[in-house]
């Protein structure tokens, strides 16, 4: 019944996600300057680090009065997931040498998500690059705009940008909740993270919640749905 996905659909979906995610670089830029970063520092983060959640985590710690080094550690720990995205993507992307160095920069949540949902390897690559490069272009542009607008935007909450950030993570999580096991692990991670929020420094609940879910998954979720027992 289902028709094979066309390349146009893959590109259109990637552009849609790319524009949607890229646009809230505005909120990063604005939050960065209201958190005490210069316009140049905000832009440097978006250009060089280019991983939204880590960038926001850095701001969160710095804005709360934490040392920049603590903020950086939180951001880098949060970036560990990109290593695993890379591991997932490597067999599909098959990049070597300079191409690998360049490609690595656009290994982020969204480019990975828009790649792994494609069964066809060529379309997986299309999804990865169109999503990653669209977000890179728009995210950097909107970071600059947001940083320049800075305090003039006022509180980003009045236009609901904080809810959009949470919704974006939910949107990224959604396609992964395709089994009872993954839904349970997501609930576990969420519960552990929320429980730790009052007790641990900013950033830690995310990492610990994630790690607990992974450990429980590795321990209790069978490696294949069907048993291989003789």
């Amino acid at each position, binding site marked *: 019944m289902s028709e094979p996905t066309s390349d146009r659909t893959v590109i259109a979906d990637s552009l849609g996600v790319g524009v949607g995610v890229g646009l809230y670089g505005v909120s990063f830029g604005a939050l960065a300057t209201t958190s005490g970063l210069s316009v140049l520092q905000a832009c440097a983060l978006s250009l060089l680090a280019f991983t939204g959640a880590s960038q926001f985590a850095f701001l969160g710690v710095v804005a709360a009065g934490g040392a*920049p080094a603590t903020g950086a550690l939180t951001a880098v720990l949060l970036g560990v997931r990109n290593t695993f995205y*890379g591991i997932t993507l490597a067999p599909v992307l098959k990049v070597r040498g300079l191409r690998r160095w360049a490609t690595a920069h656009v290994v982020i949540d969204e480019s990975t998500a828009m790649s792994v949902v494609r069964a066809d390897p060529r379309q997986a690559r299309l999804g990865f690059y169109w999503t990653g490069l669209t977000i890179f272009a728009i995210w950097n542009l909107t970071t600059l705009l947001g940083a320049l607008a800075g305090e003039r935007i006022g509180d980003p909450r009045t236009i609901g940008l904080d809810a959009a950030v949470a919704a974006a993570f939910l949107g990224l999580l959604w396609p992964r909740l395709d089994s009872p096991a993954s839904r349970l*692990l997501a609930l576990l991670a969420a519960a552990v993270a929320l429980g730790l929020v009052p007790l641990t420094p900013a950033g830690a609940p995310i*990492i610990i919640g994630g790690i*607990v879910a992974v450990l429980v998954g590795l321990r209790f979720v069978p490696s294949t749905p069907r048993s291989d027992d003789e």
Partner: protein
Amino acid sequence: MSELWWGVLMVAIGCYGLKLLGLSVPERVLEHPLTVRAAAFIPVGLLAALVVVQGFTDGSRVVVDARLAGLVVAAVLLWRKVPFLPMLIAAAATAALVRALGG
């Protein structure tokens, strides 16, 4: 160079290094069943934690505010397979509206 710049630089180098590492891991490590399973679980765990931390906390406090309404709308739209951008806009608009109404 200021302390803040050093922080920015550490984030940039650390995050890029982790991305490059992922693409450079040898294939025998890739094929290890434990790696494969962990790679599938990690985004689920971290993204779920990110949703609740971004959605239900303010500093070190757990709070329920207008963001909940935004997330509920987002979940319904995701369930109805609405694309990402309209979903984000609807979530933001819902939260903004609830706040404007004093929620």
